[in-house]
């Protein structure tokens, strides 16, 4: 089951970064994000999964589609998908991933037994006690980003 999800995820991610048509890329990204939500449910993180659905698949995808529609005219020439540094990039990324896999294989991680009891309630408690300050700060960040986006995008 999880490997099917993983295959879908990696294939759609691959399509996202290689497809020529930017709309198709966005669709592939949506699929990848959806699959990730599935991963979260699988990993006993239902709240994060739901958030993934609402924010990523919902809000951010809409933003990206907007960005595409606002900046691409129908009949525009398709930008060639990649620039001139494909080969060096590919090499660098592959070496990087190989290192990562080597590191993961060396990792000595023992899963703890048992399950989290009621992770959603726990999250709520943690967010409003231990992580209250970061929680407030992130809301401030969102507000600032909102205002900033309006200011940057405004026509003078």
């Amino acid at each position, binding site marked *: 089951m999880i490997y099917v999800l993983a295959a879908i995820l990696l294939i759609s991610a691959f399509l996202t970064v290689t497809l020529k048509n930017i709309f198709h890329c966005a669709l592939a990204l949506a699929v990848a994000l959806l699959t990730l939500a599935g991963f979260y449910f699988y990993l006993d993180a239902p709240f994060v999964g739901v958030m993934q659905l609402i924010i990523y698949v919902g809000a951010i995808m809409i933003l990206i589609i907007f960005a595409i529609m606002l900046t691409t005219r129908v009949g525009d020439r398709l930008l060639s998908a990649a*620039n001139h*540094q494909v080969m*060096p*990039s590919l090499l*660098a*990324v592959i*070496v*990087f991933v190989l*290192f990562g896999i080597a590191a993961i294989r060396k990792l000595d991680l023992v899963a703890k037994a048992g399950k989290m009891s009621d992770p959603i309630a726990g999250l709520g408690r943690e967010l409003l006690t231990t992580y209250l300050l970061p929680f407030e700060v992130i809301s401030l960040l969102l507000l600032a980003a909102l205002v900033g986006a309006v200011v940057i995008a405004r026509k003078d």
Partner: protein
Amino acid sequence: MVILIPLLPALAFAALVFFGWQLKERAPYVSIAALAGSFLLSLLAAIEVFQGTTIEVSAAWLPIVAFSFRIDLISAWMLLLVTGVGLMIQIYSIGYMKGDPRFARFFAYLSLFCAAMLGVVLANNLLLLYIFWELVGLGSYLLIGFWFEKPSAAAACKKAFIFTRAGDIGFFLGILLLFLSLGAIDFQTIFSQAHTLSVPLVTAITLLIFCGAIGKSAQFPLHVWLPDAMEGPTPVSALIHAATMVAAGVYMVARLFPLFELAPLTLTIIGYLGIGTALMACLIAVTQTDIKKIMAYSTISQLGFMMLAMGANAPEAGMFHLLTHGFFKALLFLGAGSIIHAVHSNEMSEMGGLAKAMPITFATTMIGALALTGIPPFSGFFSKDEILAAAYHNLPVAFWLAVAAVFLTAFYVFRMIFKIFPGQVKGHPHESPRVMTVPLIILAVFAFGFGFFNPFAGGHHEEAAPLLVFASSLGMATLGIFTAWLLYGAKVVSLAGWHNNFLYKFVANKFYLDEFFIYVFGWTATAVSQGLAIFDQLVIDGIVNLVGRVGWIFAFVNSFFDIYIVDGLVNLLAKISALFGEALRRAQTGLVQNYLLFVVVGIVLVLLIRR
């Protein structure tokens, strides 16, 4: 609570800078309320101090510097002077600055100035003192240049800033030297450990520190900024002259007196420099026709007196004179401002008969003049007498010079009085509004009565003033007034021919000190830059030309072979560097992704190496 004393005006400054344009006419209320608050707090603190305690507050700031304030007897009185006189001047400014386009900004600057000065008064270590000291310099720069549209005002504020900075360099070097030799900068540690230093070292330190006082308190030869500072609005001049800025130098010497005490040579230099400045300024004041300029030189000479007191080992007398001078000079300045406000001119030739037209201004100015002259029972008499007594005991030569300065002081003050008050009314002057006259009256009360109790009496330098001192100072003062009356009141002797006198011209042009500075420093700078220009032309251009010409001649005279060698070599060098440049330029593609790729490759390389 103590921290609030300078903080309140500082907050007023911030408030007025940001919101002054909205407050407009109401701006003064903010700054006056803040300063009044500081005044009340100072009063509370002073009452506590007068009962024999010393207030100290301190907060850790940097490892060796605490943010510490201290109020003792001297600083308590200074606090009262600064806040009190500052308050009077701010109230007065409401009337004086009415209708100015930068009305609110003016009060913001006044607040900043007062806050900085209060900081200087309170600071309990040298670094803090120095920081506020520079803030005072900044405040004076802003205020003197307040009417910066006038080229003369812009020039004057630059001059004030540069000349005081020149002294501050010495001050800062002194602080550094002291810190290097003691490892501490707070006053108590310095005073308790300074005696371990060798006398030459202390002398060097104190002389350097005194340089700061020379600049701020306008002593010879850095005094030239003060008369030019008259380009600022008159309340500013009053503030600078009476309570802040120039008082800072004297106050600093008094505060550090336990240190100065260890260097007798420095004290002697201070004393003679002080009385020399006083005499010189008195002489110049006699020749001036602009009443604000007269006031300015009068301030310089009175500061000279205070420095004389420091030099004569009597800081209490100097501080006493600083306080009385603060009141009567503020009074005289505001009086002058009131006159200027009515006559619309600074020149004495355009004034006359003002005694009838402006009775309150006349009466209060008269009190100020008598206090400045040192006629008993006005306040100036008491403080000046103490200074003279101290000088008589410790610096006898300076004492006789000081007596001469007393005569000149009386002469120039009453020359001014006789020229502008009696006689026929010129034009249509009228008495100033109440917001200006009330501060005058309040200050007059202080200028009259403050001398009766000496706040520093009972100090360990107290010595009975001999009759000779009393008699000579009073006699000289009276003689000065009488001479002024003879020449300008009764006009017994005609002065027509005097103005062409060589000596008169020499003095009237302020001993050509401004010209001296311009010629010496200006000329030096020009000469150095011209020298550098010649160096540029001769050496740099010369080398290039020489190489070119030699190559050309050789090539022309000998053969084309030479051209190929010489040019080829030069071209080769150029090509090599161009090649390098071209190669390195390629790394800068301007493409963000390209840079990112370099980052990733870098990470991979690090991983490879660390494996």
